[in-house]
């Protein structure tokens, strides 16, 4: 049975907190580019950008975009052919602070691919990572700078993350999952869904 | 059944069904059909239980490519004879496109002798119409006619005798010895680089088309020439509905024309080309469903006189390649009777007496071949085959007895099965199995004295 761990209001609060933390760490909204990793990371990135704009009404042009990592994945030969999503990098990212936004942080491989993809678009001064859920089980030396909720889970469990814009409803839940129900390639829930 | 039966051993065939449906026993002795009737017995005879089997007169193929001399990697006279026997044939006409070409008395006599040595079937050589099949000057038709091979059928098959004057002369000349010119009707200019039937499918696949008119225009020209000079014409492998119409018109006019259709043109259509499997590449090409239906109707109404296989063996490498580079042709001796069974018997167009006519009596008559096609009558040479019409099989490599495997029927389900073939009174196939070459050579050689 699925157990809901975050409802819509919880998610909104978590994103507001992350937005504040980003502003605090960046000392304002200048030179900030927020890039979501498709699909749900893009939605979250957009919400964070809106929240930042709301918190700092004087900030001009908080730049937000999407960064598809399909072409940079290390498991392309092991799964079905993936259909890439669109990459939209708003202007140059040289010398700015880029905040990568993803829904669930798991093995870290998606973020590894994102860092490679980012490097092909330019040279940011700083790259930060924001995720709504960190479920552990990292396979690479990667950690998030801003986390909505830490959700220690077993690999047999499944994290469901729904967002209104994509799924029509909104929550984060956790499934017991059958024994051995772990994603065989250890990918993030988002990528495996 | 004893495997040491020899020519001198009589056979008693029990309970066979004649083409007309009557049940009978047959005794084969001294190379002839000695007795026909019920309740026969014969001391010392090998008894063959033929219950449920149709006895057909030994099949005669007017159009076989045996490839020897010259292309022994594809087929030899021995292996081609074995393929023929397995298919129920007791005689094959060996096409002239060997290397050297069968355009002299020496070559046709060599083919004849190799056929006799093999001993499975009567191998009757066909002579080339023109020297080297080049279409330029007549080969020594008279010398081949008077040679030991007694050639009566002349053909440049593989090539069309397209020069109208040369064709006229050939038709005229063979009258001197009651010969016949068997024409491969293909207008060469209209079929340059042709790969398949010209039509909607060739348009889609981007293949150079082989238009029906290239066949029909040559047949129309040739029947008029035959009428003009009062000679016999035989049309090889008719493949289009239009050709059937032209021949029907010519026959109604009293022109001495005979025509053959191949088993594959009676069964298969051009749709098989879609997968680019070169086993389906053949000349003339597989045509449309309408053409297949017209050929069947033509065979049923007598417009088309006979079925001939155009058995054309090719080595693996000639077919295991891109379509354009592949050779034309299919092997067909082993499968012919089953394919004809499926195409025109199961469809109710022909009965087994018709089959005896189109696959034995008439081809022997067109080719003026004595000792064949005389039917199942007392005193006739013991040339017959026993066929199980109730059998059904998925045709496979194991059903091929020749050297090459370029059969379009592999993995296809076909009705019927040849269980025994008798040639000159001895069994070449018994219990569905080919008898070994050494045994056949021993008995066959003896009958030729």
């Amino acid at each position, binding site marked *: 049975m699925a157990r809901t761990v975050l409802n819509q209001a919880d998610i909104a609060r978590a994103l507001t907190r992350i937005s504040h933390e980003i502003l605090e760490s960046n000392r304002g909204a200048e030179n900030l580019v927020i890039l979501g990793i498709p699909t749900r990371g893009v939605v979250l990135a957009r919400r964070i950008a809106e929240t930042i704009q709301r918190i700092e009404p004087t900030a001009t042009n908080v730049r937000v975009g999407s960064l598809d990592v399909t*072409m940079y994945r290390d498991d392309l*030969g*092991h799964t079905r*052919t*993936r259909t890439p999503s669109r990459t939209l990098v708003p202007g140059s990212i040289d010398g700015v602070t880029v905040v990568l936004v993803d829904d669930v942080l798991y093995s870290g491989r998606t973020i590894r691919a994102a860092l490679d993809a980012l490097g092909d*678009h330019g040279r940011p001064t700083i790259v930060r990572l924001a995720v709504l859920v960190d479920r552990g089980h990292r396979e690479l030396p990667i950690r998030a700078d801003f986390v909505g909720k830490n959700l220690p889970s077993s690999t047999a469990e499944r994290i469901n993350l729904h967002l209104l814009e994509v799924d029509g409803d909104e929550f984060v839940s956790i499934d017991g999952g059958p024994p051995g129900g772990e994603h065989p390639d250890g990918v993030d829930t988002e990528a495996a869904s | 059944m004893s495997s040491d039966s020899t020519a001198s051993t009589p056979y008693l065939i029990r309970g066979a069904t004649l083409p007309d449906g009557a049940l009978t026993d047959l005794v084969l002795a001294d190379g002839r059909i000695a007795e026909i009737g019920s309740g026969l017995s014969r001391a010392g005879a090998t008894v063959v239980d033929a219950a449920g089997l149709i006895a057909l007169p030994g099949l005669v193929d007017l159009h076989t490519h045996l490839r020897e001399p010259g292309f022994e990697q594809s087929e030899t006279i021995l292996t081609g004879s074995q393929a023929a026997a397995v298919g129920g044939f007791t005689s094959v006409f060996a096409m002239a496109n060997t290397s050297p070409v069968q355009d002299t008395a020496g070559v046709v006599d060599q083919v004849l002798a190799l056929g006799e040595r093999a001993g499975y079937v009567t191998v009757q050589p066909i002579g080339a119409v023109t020297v080297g099949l080049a279409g330029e000057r007549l080969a020594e038709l008279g010398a081949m006619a008077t040679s030991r091979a007694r050639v009566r059928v002349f053909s440049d098959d593989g090539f069309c005798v397209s020069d109208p004057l040369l064709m006229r002369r050939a038709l005229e000349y063979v009258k001197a010895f009651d010969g016949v010119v068997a024409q491969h009707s293909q207008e060469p200019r209209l079929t340059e680089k042709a790969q398949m039937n010209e039509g909607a499918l060739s348009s889609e696949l981007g*293949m150079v088309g082989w238009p029906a008119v290239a066949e029909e225009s040559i047949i129309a020209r040739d029947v008029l020439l035959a009428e003009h000079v009062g000679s016999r014409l035989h049309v090889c492998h008719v493949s289009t509905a239009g050709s059937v119409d032209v021949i029907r018109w010519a026959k109604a006019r009293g022109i001495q024309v005979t025509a053959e259709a191949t088993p594959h043109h009676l069964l298969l259509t051009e749709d098989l080309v879609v997968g680019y499997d070169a086993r389906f590449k053949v000349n003339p090409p597989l045509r449309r469903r309408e053409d297949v239906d017209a050929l069947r109707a033509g065979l049923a109404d007598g417009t088309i006189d006979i079925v001939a296989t155009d058995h054309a063996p090719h080595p693996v490498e000639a077919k295991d*390649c*891109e379509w354009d580079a592949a050779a034309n042709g299919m092997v067909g001796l082993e499968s012919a009777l089953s394919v004809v069974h499926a195409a025109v018997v199961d469809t109710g167009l022909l009965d087994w007496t018709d089959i005896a006519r189109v696959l034995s009596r008439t081809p022997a008559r067109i080719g003026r071949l004595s000792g064949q096609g005389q039917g199942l009558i007392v005193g006739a040479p013991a040339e017959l085959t026993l066929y199980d019409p109730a059998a059904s099989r998925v045709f496979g490599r194991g059903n091929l007895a020749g050297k090459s495997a370029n059969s379009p029927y592999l993995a296809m389900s076909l009705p019927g099965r040849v269980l025994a073939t008798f040639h000159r009174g001895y069994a070449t196939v018994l219990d569905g199995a080919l008898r070994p070459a050494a045994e056949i050579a021993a008995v066959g050689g003896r009958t030729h004295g």
Partner: protein
Amino acid sequence: MRHLLSTKGLSQGEAIRLLDIAEDMADVADREVKKLPTLRGKTVVNLFFEDSTRTRISFEAAAKRLSADVINFSAKGSSVSKGESLKDTAQTLAAMGADGVVIRHPASGAPHVLAESGWIDAGIINAGDGTHEHPTQALLDAFTIRRRLHRGAARGKGLDGVTVTIVGDILHSRVARSNLWLLTTLGAHVTLIAPPTLLPMDMSGWPAESGFDLDAAIDAGPDVVMMLRIQQERMNAAFFPNSREYSRRWGLDDERFGRLAPTTIVMHPGPMNRGLEISSAAADSAGSTVREQVANGVSVRMAALYLLLSGDREDS
């Protein structure tokens, strides 16, 4: 997608997916680093039994932008040119570990034979087979039309209701065949215009109108006019009397070009015979996509290579 042999077998969904991925690939060309690591470690062989420098370098650029290793194998004029050579060559490439083979061959169906034969277990892309198909050319043409019509909002769209007139040697054109199937699958209406000798004898199965009158076709106001290259050798085979007459009746000359709406897209797969099937003014006009077609060719071929070579091959 295991192979790309023809456009006839492509569903609308597959075609749009490929075109959408090509949009992503086109974006890469605008970046600072114009290369993706996607096919690192994969080997793509350009197996060309016919000369075609343009097509070969387009595939080569596409494969290299995806970080694949590229081997160019020109089999034309070598001692092996017929018969079992295709089999031998395929087995050689298999032994070298080719993951993808881009094949150009004068025989219709040769890529199909290569894909089905079992000689090699690589993804096969048809880069033009005889007078059969040239699927990546049609895909780049469709991509070019879609971009012209929808600009940045092309993703996910087909070509519903777009009228395309293809003019020239339809009989011998693999480009025309591939475009016919693909464009109609995407919702376009195709009209084929040619001398009667250069139309296939039976087009009953083709989802297209056909005719002989280019002027009438121009006056019908098509959204796209695609001119095909006319080969000089057709003249010698009596398909038409001479180039002057061909040009007069079936060429997109200045006068006919002037009658087209300014928004009409003018296409040519190249290389062009300027002054024969297309005038310089038409070829160099704002409506002409000739140069875009070349650039888009790389994006489309990147998409095709990605779809063929990125997934788990057992799975496809």
